[in-house]
């Protein structure tokens, strides 16, 4: 794996490629240099030699046999230029693959270790997606652009050197005129690139509409509501608008590319013009003239495009490297990639002391002076309306957001002072938006306790998954979801039971269930409640729910409103108090009277 540093410039694309695949990278550069010398300077030289020898033979000045050496040289040059291309292709695809193998895991590793707040924050999320979308291509484009630039420079230099050896002053004239031109090209290239980025922004919306029209998740609504035509119309409008914007950018780009090509034609004219005199005076042979002019005019065709593309891609990779730098320097959570401790610590108590919290980038205080204490071995329930801050409590507890004010004490010691692996081993959470891992059912459950295998079947049984397991083609070994071959999808409720089984498999002393029953049917829900007490014997449980039936089981119910505890007590106490809890409970009971 490649170490990713925190300070990259455009040029570092080459270093990354070199680190990923040193041998191939050096080979690639050597081959590229050889190719450009062969195609220009060497070819001009052998052509000159051949033409001059042939002319001399035709004039009868030299013997006929003298032609064979120049001919062989000519053919060898030709042969090398022809064959070298395939080798370069092979080497560069090897570099690409090595980069993929060595770089992407590094990017993923950084990504996985980022502070959780970056994931929920949209600005940083955009940067993260931009960087992780296609790092290999972004870097390879830059690498190829640098190599291309090198080839251009070598080509030009080799021809220039040839000219210098014959008529030195011609070379000076050429340099004098071409240097400012190149400088202009570089500047124009940057501008074109920036304009292109503007147009790219526009296309994001078009892409989204395309997803609406082709995606899997909204197939029901798409079919029934029949909005395909309407959205397709919108898509077309967006696309056309974006296309026209892009057209202007492309037009400008071509103007620039061809502008520089036409300038190159003029420079070539200049070269040829300065060389006519020496030919007439005999200072230069006709063969040399032909060799040089062929090389120079031959370059025009390729150079215009290659030069501008390389410049554009160098600018692009520069931007990418900036993003990569920003990505690598984002704050990471210490030990975030560790596995939970093999043996969870003994849990005694958990206390929130005047905790205040707002999500990064948000003004609203989600928790506003939250204080409560929980003891080991008891069952607690959090209830309250949506947005009251129930789920936020679970996020703080598990260390996802350490930037809270106030104190969270575990066994009397501040949460932030524990190691990440200890906290992971302490809590097992079934989130409302629990993850549906599209891997084998067995692995889905096994993830609950990475240090202990073999209890998956029992956990599945306890979570009421027996029937599901039987209905799957390969039982516990069936891959879930549509990713792996032979994968089978589960319903929302079945998935939720998988999540519960995962939690049951965990040996964490504190179990948090965030709305665990919202997708369960009545019987399963009821069974779950009943089993829960039995299953969680000796454990501390925290239920987050607005299904008040479940909360009756709790030893203590904490009612949350506007970021703090507004009521707490047993079910009976709260009903007797006739406060917000009683109101909600009565409303729900209304159904069953």
């Amino acid at each position, binding site marked *: 794996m490649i170490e990713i540093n925190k300070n990259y410039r455009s040029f570092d694309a080459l270093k990354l490629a070199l680190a990923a695949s040193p041998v191939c990278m050096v080979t690639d550069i050597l081959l590229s240099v050889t190719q450009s010398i062969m195609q220009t300077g060497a070819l001009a030289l052998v052509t000159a030699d051949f033409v001059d020898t042939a002319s001399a*033979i035709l004039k009868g000045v030299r013997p006929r046999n003298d032609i064979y050496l120049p001919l062989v040289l000519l053919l060898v040059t030709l042969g090398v230029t*022809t064959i070298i291309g395939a080798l370069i292709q092979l080497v560069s695809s090897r570099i690409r693959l090595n980069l993929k193998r060595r770089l992407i895991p590094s990017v993923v590793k950084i990504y996985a270790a980022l502070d959780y707040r970056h994931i929920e924050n949209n600005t940083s999320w955009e940067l993260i997606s931009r960087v992780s979308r296609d790092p290999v291509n972004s870097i390879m484009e830059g690498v190829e652009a640098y190599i291309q630039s090198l080839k251009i420079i070598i080509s030009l230099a080799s021809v220039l050197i040839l000219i210098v050896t014959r008529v030195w002053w011609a070379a000076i004239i050429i340099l004098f005129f071409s240097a400012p031109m190149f400088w202009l090209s570089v500047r124009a290239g940057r501008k074109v690139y920036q304009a292109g980025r503007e147009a790219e922004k526009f296309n994001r919306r078009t892409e989204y509409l395309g997803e609406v029209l082709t995606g899997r998740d909204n197939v029901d609504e798409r079919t029934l*509501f029949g909005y395909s035509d309407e959205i397709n119309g919108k898509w077309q409008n967006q*696309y056309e608008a974006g296309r026209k914007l892009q057209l202007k950018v492309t037009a400008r780009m071509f103007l620039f590319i061809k502008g520089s090509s036409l300038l190159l034609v003029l420079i070539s004219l200049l070269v040829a013009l300065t060389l006519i005199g020496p030919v*007439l005076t005999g200072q230069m042979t*006709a063969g040399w003239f032909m060799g040089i002019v062929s090389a120079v*005019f031959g370059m025009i065709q390729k150079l215009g495009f290659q030069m501008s593309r390389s410049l554009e891609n160098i600018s692009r990779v520069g931007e990418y490297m900036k993003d990569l730098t920003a990505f690598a320097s984002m704050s990471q959570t210490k030990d975030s990639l560790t596995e939970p401790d093999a043996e969870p610590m003994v849990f005694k108590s958990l206390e929130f002391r005047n905790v205040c919290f707002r999500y990064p980038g948000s003004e609203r205080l989600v928790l506003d002076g939250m204080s409560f204490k929980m003891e080991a071995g008891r069952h607690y329930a959090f209830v309250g309306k949506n947005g009251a801050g129930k789920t936020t409590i679970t996020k703080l507890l598990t260390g996802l957001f350490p930037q809270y004010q106030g104190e969270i004490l575990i066994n009397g010691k501040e949460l932030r002072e524990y190691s990440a692996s200890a906290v992971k081993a302490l809590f097992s*959470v079934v989130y409302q938006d629990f993850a549906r891992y599209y891997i084998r059912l067995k692995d889905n459950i096994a993830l609950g306790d990475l240090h202990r295998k073999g209890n998956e079947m029992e956990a599945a049984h306890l979570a009421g998954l027996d029937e599901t397991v039987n209905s799957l083609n390969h039982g516990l070994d069936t891959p879930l979801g549509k990713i792996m071959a032979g994968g089978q999808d589960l319903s929302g409720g079945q998935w939720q039971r998988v999540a519960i089984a995962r939690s049951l498999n965990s040996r964490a002393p504190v179990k948090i269930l965030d709305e665990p029953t919202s997708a369960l049917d009545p019987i399963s829900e009821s069974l779950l409640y009943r089993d829960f007490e039995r299953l969680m014997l000796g454990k501390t449980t925290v239920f987050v729910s607005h299904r008040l039936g479940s909360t009756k089981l709790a030893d203590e119910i904490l009612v949350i409103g506007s970021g703090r505890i507004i009521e707490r007590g047993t079910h009976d106490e709260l009903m007797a108090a006739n406060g917000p809890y009683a109101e909600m409970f009565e409303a729900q009971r209304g159904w069953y009277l």
Partner: protein
Amino acid sequence: MNTEKKNDTFFQVITRIIPMQFQAAPFNCILENILAVMHGLSFSLTVVATQHLFDTISKASASQADFSDCMFSLFLLTGATFGQQLLNGIHNFHGTGILFPKSSGKMTVLLHKKLKNIDPAQFENTDFLDDLNKAREGIQAIPLCCMILFLCVSFYGVYFLSIGTYLFTLKPMLLITLLLAFIPAIMAQTINIRVFTRLEEQSAPLRREHEYYQKAICDREYFKETRILGAFSFFNQLFTDTLELLTSKIWRAERKIALLQLVLNITTFAGMGTSAYLLFTATMNGEITVGMFAAVFAALGQIFDIMNEIVSKHIGSMNRDIGKINNFLHLLEMPDRTGSSGIPDFTIGVAAYGISYTYPGRENPAVKDVTLNLAEGETIAIVGENGAGKSTLVRLLTGIYRPLEGRVIIGGLDTAKIAPSSLYKGISGVFQKYQRYKMTLEENVAISDSLAKAGLDQAESALREAGFEKGSIRMEDMLSPEFGGIDLSGGQWQRIAIARGLYRVNDFIVLDEPTSAIDPIEEIRIYKQFQRLAEGKCALVVTHRLGSAKLADRVVVLEAGEIVDMGTHDELLSRPGKYADMWAAQAQWYEREEK
């Protein structure tokens, strides 16, 4: 379907995509070809001009021509090159700047239109999703492939024809040069196609798996849970393993192609060498001048370069794309869900006769032999355990899926025979997987009935009815931070989804488990509203909350895809059975404690 499908050959594909391309942008296709012809001619012209200059220079070195002769020849060459570069710019600009984006837009529209008519059940099929993914990549491949073909015929063809004529006038034998350059190119392309189509087929599932493992570590959906479970190493292992497999697979294909390229290049070189030798003997025999030799020799490089360009770049990229194009074409060939038109009459209600349905790739049917009649104005609640087939039944009863056995008649129309556009007129719904469209608030509601153009007032009243707390949010506000809009809570989104269902003019409405993110007091309000709104309409409610089933005229109890009981709430409660069990299980939590 994926394994059985045959892939069309290269030429079959070409004959199919060329007409598509011309249909997409007829004028631009013609212009593209005209530009290509002129561009091709300009290349040959520069060769002639180069020869002219070299001849003059040869004479000049022998003092047979003066400075002005050389100047004239040089300006001729410069002029030709200038024109060639200009044409090159215009031609390329037209191709990449105009023709390509224009036609790939048209192709995308074609795909969108096709997807509209494809059986929605296909979206549950992994193979189809795979193919769809590849077909989406095929969108750009078609115009690209066609442009390369145009280039081959009108540009390279014209170039080779004109340069061939020129060579022929110099020495007929030199024509062999072109032949020598062509043969290896054609040989290679047939083998090339196979390698890349196979790579694509083989690596697609692996790539999907690999990309998924990255998601399981990095995506928002998974991030926090993977972290807290400490499952990074687990997924990272899978991730790097699949990466190794994938890259070694790609490497094998790349290596094969590169070796092939090498052999091809050696053949090409043999051709070049032979041509050079022919030129050489002609020069030595005095048949052509040294100037001609140099000009043609320089052009020889160009001829073989261009040939190399066609083979390794253009044909190469065409070969890489042909698999994707095949997928696109196969998708377009899939059967359309069409049917005759008709007007549903909901006074007849909705009926299902012995319907069964099995998802592709599954053994057990999700719905088995269900017969059900929903009378005019009746509300039926469907209850059952998870996986009992409730959502599938809803999809069948609304005509989203067509039953594999039996018939579903909606308002007198057979869902298997009537075109979707007629069928869904008058049906609305709120789905379990409701969408959060990254559009404006108004669009989010009005998307359910885009033909109605009912307007802002209608959308606002639907939102009010659904209990959406508008606050300072305006109808034209974008509901997506990604596009510079605002972020809503899950509960707010659910209310939008309900408003969406209400907005669509309907006589038959489906409510699939709408309350999972709404608190108890809200939930009751919405169910009551729904009951009111369902009055006089056919309605289906899928629910876990048996309390809400009380509001329905009839309750259908589903188990393992079959109806096990049916009746009013009271009837079902009065007799022992699944429903009574479920009710008892749930209601106990709310019974008053007798002290």
